[in-house]
């Protein structure tokens, strides 16, 4: 139905920057309870950032503000200079129509902790549904794409399985393939392995490791310290809605500056 609109988006596939995320002065509170407090963070295109922090520190909330699943009280988030929820004209910000927000959102893929695959669609259909609905691909091409992506995440033999017929690790890999189907500039992972058995964690991390090499911007909330140290270019440590520490893994893990970071790492390492 929205073929015209989405063809337009096809022509914009030659960006000068791909996946620059800029978070400026973001604050957010729920019913007087501060969840994010003046958060500033710039993620360079192709960079891999791991966000660490204790439970309830606001990691998920921060991630959700990046693709406007959550609105912010103060500050703003841009992806390649575009505000996801608003449009700047002169010195005014206009709230965008839902359709426009949806289009901008496709620049940012999300992989959820509990997968959120569509249970009534097969693995391949889960992946193909968005490209078809957005008018980017025909049905046959979308299935082709889905099969290709499934092969990439090591599930070439499961295109017609329903999510409940897959193991947790396999479901999460389908979810990653689904997020990739829209060729997002930025991929957000919210604890992608924390719902998985230790045995299955490895297969999902392998897929993310491959993505990191391909140059997509990745922002990963994780409790897998070893993995964060290995793939991340930078580590961000959040506590109680404040970013306390940002830096390369060697530095943050080797000589944390903030006492809270030291305490947290002391507990999890």
């Amino acid at each position, binding site marked *: *139905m*929205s073929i015209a609109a989405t063809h337009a988006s096809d022509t914009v596939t030659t960006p000068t920057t791909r996946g620059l995320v800029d978070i400026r002065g973001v604050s957010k509170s729920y019913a007087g309870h501060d969840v994010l407090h003046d958060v500033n963070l710039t993620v360079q295109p192709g960079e891999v950032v791991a966000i660490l922090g204790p439970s309830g520190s606001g990691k998920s909330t921060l991630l959700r503000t990046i*693709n406007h*699943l959550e609105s912010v009280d103060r500050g703003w988030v841009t992806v390649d200079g575009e505000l996801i929820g608003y449009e700047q004209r002169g010195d005014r910000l206009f709230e965008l129509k*839902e*359709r426009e927000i*949806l*289009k901008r*959102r*496709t620049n*940012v*893929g*999300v992989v*959820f902790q*509990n997968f*959120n*695959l*569509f*249970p*009534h*669609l*097969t693995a391949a259909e889960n992946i193909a*549904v*968005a490209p078809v*609905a*957005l008018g980017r691909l025909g049905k046959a091409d979308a299935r082709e794409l889905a099969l290709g992506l499934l092969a990439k995440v*090591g599930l070439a033999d499961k295109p017609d399985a*329903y*999510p*409940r*017929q*897959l*193991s947790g*690790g*396999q479901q999460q890999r389908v979810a990653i393939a*689904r*997020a990739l189907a*829209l060729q997002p500039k930025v991929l957000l992972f919210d604890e992608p392995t924390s719902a998985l058995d230790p045995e299955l964690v490895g*297969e999902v991390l392998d897929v993310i490791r491959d993505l990191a090499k391909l140059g997509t911007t990745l922002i990963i909330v994780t409790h897998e310290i070893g993995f964060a140290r290995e793939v991340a270019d930078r580590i961000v440590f959040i506590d109680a809605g404040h970013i306390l520490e940002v830096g390369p893994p060697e530095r943050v893990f080797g000589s944390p500056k903030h006492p809270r970071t030291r305490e947290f790492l002391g507990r999890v390492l």
Partner: protein
Amino acid sequence: MTDIVQEYGSAAPTEDSSATPQVVNRDSPDFAAFTVVHTRHYVRWIFGALVLFVVLQFLWSLATNDKYGWPVFATYFFAPAILKGIQLTLGLTVVAGTIGFLLGTLLALARLSKSPILNSVSWSFIWFFRSVPLLVQLLVWYNLGYLYPRLGLGVPFTDNYFWSFDTVTLVSQFAAAVLGLSLNQAAYSAEIIRGGILSVDQGQLEAAAALGLPRHVRVLRIILPQAARAILPNAFNEIIGLIKGTSIVSVIALGELFYVTQVIYNRNQQVIPLLLVSVVWYIIFTTVLSIAQFYVERHFARGALRVVPPTPIQAARAWVKTQWARLDEKPAAPEPSKAATTRIGGNGS
């Protein structure tokens, strides 16, 4: 790399199944060779026999009590007047059911929307049509001509029409019946559909939004198919209720099945046989719908169940197959462990 055995692996050993060092008590006897004596359920048998007796007695009376008038039943069962009544009953059900569920879906979506206007309009509609008895609604629609003799387009708040109709010609008996039934149905189905939509996990909405799916795709492709599982049993209840509920339109002298039956027995005084005619027809409709319900629900169970239950035909075929296999086997007691492994293998494939 991960195959089926590994997925269901928690139950079955994944590697070295030959060398599994399971603790076996060598002293225990080999129970597989023993004959099993099942518990006798005497009370169950006694009650079963009692119920069976009552049922048989009733069937016997049906066959022998000539007051049931089976010959009259037989002459009228396919009578043209009855068949015409059936046509109208089914027509009303299809039209009112379709309008009811379509309008109900819109009402449910309006009720769940963020717009306060849509929300309250929908709420009021549901409130009103659930409050007024259907019988009263039908009579009001039928007598609309008394309230508003002419309906049409004109200057607002005046009686100057550009274009108008006699209400009585516009709202015929049939139209009054359709209006009454479908508006009433819409109010009830709206709540059923809303309940179904609410049962869909919030994470599904979030995932759909994160993928940038447009609203109509989210509703039609993601939410409603999942809501359908919760909606369907109630929806079939409603349709079955509607098909019998159409008999209420006999109050406005519309010739559906029940009205026709009444007309005939008022003429020939054969009340019971003619009531039986309509009862048997209603039973037939309900049976067909119940069978349809099984298959429709099965269709929407895709993905929700790991293994979709077999259709009765598949189940019967499987049963015959196992019985056949049992005949082929030697009459020796089947080995329990063997039976278990075949079942697990069957699940996996």
